[in-house]
């Protein structure tokens, strides 16, 4: 498998994230994203372990678009990790077909295949006897890159994951903090610029503060690299924050719902999905909507000195409204000028409008 740099016309509308700047924005929000990702298709994939009567994964079919970040969410043991690991054949499927950019994965040499699929696991698995630079160079070396090219790539990747190459290239994994190791894990997976990344709870072992930081960095990174990513997590909030689409999985890797975070939060397909979302679906939805996407009030309506920036989410605005008790607060642009105001009524209206009427399920729970 060579590096299939798929150009899908250079532009893509992000599923669950802001699509267009709709109102009062002074800056243009770009939805243009370079996609170097591949198309992944799983068709009727099954996995049955040895003598077990029940399949671990049953008849799993899914299409993942190039450059898309798909989250597999489900409880422990539901088969989400097994499903993901069949794509790079860490686990061999019992039957079915898996293609990456049209090529049947099962017909390729597994080692050759894996060199073109980035792989990040929760325990990171950095090689302790190799320096950070050596860890990142493993796949480029396997692919026969020159020393010069490999070194440049290592420096580039360390910068991408915000680690200074001069400081970190020569260090050993044990000299790094957990968060730094996880960044190196991502850099190592990206080393040969693979079109596909498989990530198995990559941020699961880090503390909440580090995790949130890594998530933000990861999103920013994905904006620029546009890989096709399968990301396994049991944390629904993480799925909402990161995913273009979320697949909510139940036993035997059955897809209960596969949709954008906003759609799943607005209209969970069934009780199983609803239970996974947990309480506060409306608040979670608000966190997905930036102020510049919402219909806001006039600047003159703002009260008090509290203000939010238009790139903040409706949830941030609501937080401040509740805290200050004001009827409406100012919304400023990046330069700090007040461009609009926002009130609780407008936030509620946004939820209603977004969902096209009040949904029965989330209504019933709130």
């Amino acid at each position, binding site marked *: 498998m060579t590096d299939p740099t798929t150009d899908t016309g250079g532009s893509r509308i992000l599923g669950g994230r802001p699509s267009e700047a709709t109102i009062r924005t002074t800056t243009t929000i770009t939805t243009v994203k370079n996609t170097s990702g591949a198309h992944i298709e799983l068709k009727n994939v099954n996995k049955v372990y040895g003598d077990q009567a029940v399949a671990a994964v049953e008849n799993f079919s899914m299409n993942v678009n190039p450059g898309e970040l798909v989250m597999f969410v489900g409880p422990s043991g539901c088969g989400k990790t097994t499903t993901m690991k069949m794509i790079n054949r860490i686990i061999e499927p019992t039957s079915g077909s898996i293609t990456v950019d049209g090529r049947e994965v099962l017909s390729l040499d597994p080692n050759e295949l894996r060199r073109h699929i980035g*792989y990040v*696991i929760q*325990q990171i698995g950095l090689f*302790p*006897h190799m320096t950070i630079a050596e860890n990142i160079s493993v796949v480029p070396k396997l692919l026969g890159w020159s020393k010069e090219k490999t070194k440049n790539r290592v420096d580039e990747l360390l910068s991408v994951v915000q680690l200074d190459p001069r400081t970190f290239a020569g260090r050993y994994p044990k000299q790094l903090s957990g968060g730094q190791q996880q960044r190196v894990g991502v850099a190592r997976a990206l080393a040969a610029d693979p079109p596909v990344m498989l990530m198995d709870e990559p941020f699961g072992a880090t503390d909440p503060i580090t995790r949130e930081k890594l998530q933000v960095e990861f999103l920013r990174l994905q904006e620029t690299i546009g890989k096709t990513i399968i990301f396994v997590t049991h944390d629904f909030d993480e799925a909402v924050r990161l995913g273009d689409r979320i697949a909510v999985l139940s036993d035997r890797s059955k897809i209960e719902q596969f949709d954008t975070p906003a759609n799943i939060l607005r209209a969970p397909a069934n009780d199983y999905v609803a239970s996974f979302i947990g309480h506060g679906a409306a608040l979670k939805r608000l966190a997905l909507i930036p102020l510049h996407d919402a219909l806001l009030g006039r600047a003159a309506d703002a009260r008090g000195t509290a203000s939010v920036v238009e790139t903040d989410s409706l949830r941030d605005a609501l937080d401040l409204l509740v805290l200050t008790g004001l009827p409406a607060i100012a919304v400023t642009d990046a330069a700090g000028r007040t461009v609009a105001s926002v009130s609780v009524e407008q936030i509620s209206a946004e939820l209603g409008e977004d969902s096209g009427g009040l949904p029965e399920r989330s209504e019933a729970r709130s």
Partner: protein
Amino acid sequence: MTGFDFPGLLAFWGKRSDDILTLVGEHLLVVAIALLLATVIGVGVGLLVWNSPVGRSLAVTSAAVILTIPSLALLAAMIPLFGLGWVPTLIGLTLYSLLPIIRNTVVGLREVSPAIMESATGMGLAPGAVLLRIQLPMAWPVIVTGVRVAAQLTIGIAAIGAYVGGPGLGQMIFQGLSSLGSKNALNYALTGTLCVIILALIVDGLFTLITRYTTSKGLRA
């Protein structure tokens, strides 16, 4: 039996210093060659059997059985096959060294965490490459410890090699034992024994350095 005479011992050392040094050199050489052979064989066997439950218990048990054979008996048994001299001594020492080396190799290779193995496989390293480029370097400090134990073992056993005409300090000890009552009997035996002990301590110190300089900085505590 003559009593202990310290000035006499010193005089003996002065007179026999050349002989003593030659025997120390031989002792060291025979141990070094045996360890080298045992390391190559032991690590090789370890690499072959580490992942097979039957293979590794067979290998470790066989090596353990060898170690239970009294050294005198093993050496004597080799005389009809290999005659006298260096060869039976070398073979005996190599066989005795196998257990700590094989066992530590197997333990070291198996100690590598499943997460590291999985990420290596997931990056497209073939099983052989995972073994040689990831597991072996990570297991190395444990393997060197095995060689170190084997060194302690063989420095002592090598002295018995003199029984089959082997080289080293054993010659001195046996000469002393066989000439009990003569003037220098105690000096011979004492010098041989002391040199074996000192040699063992020096070699052990040497292994601290070997471990240090052949282990990746990333693995050191």
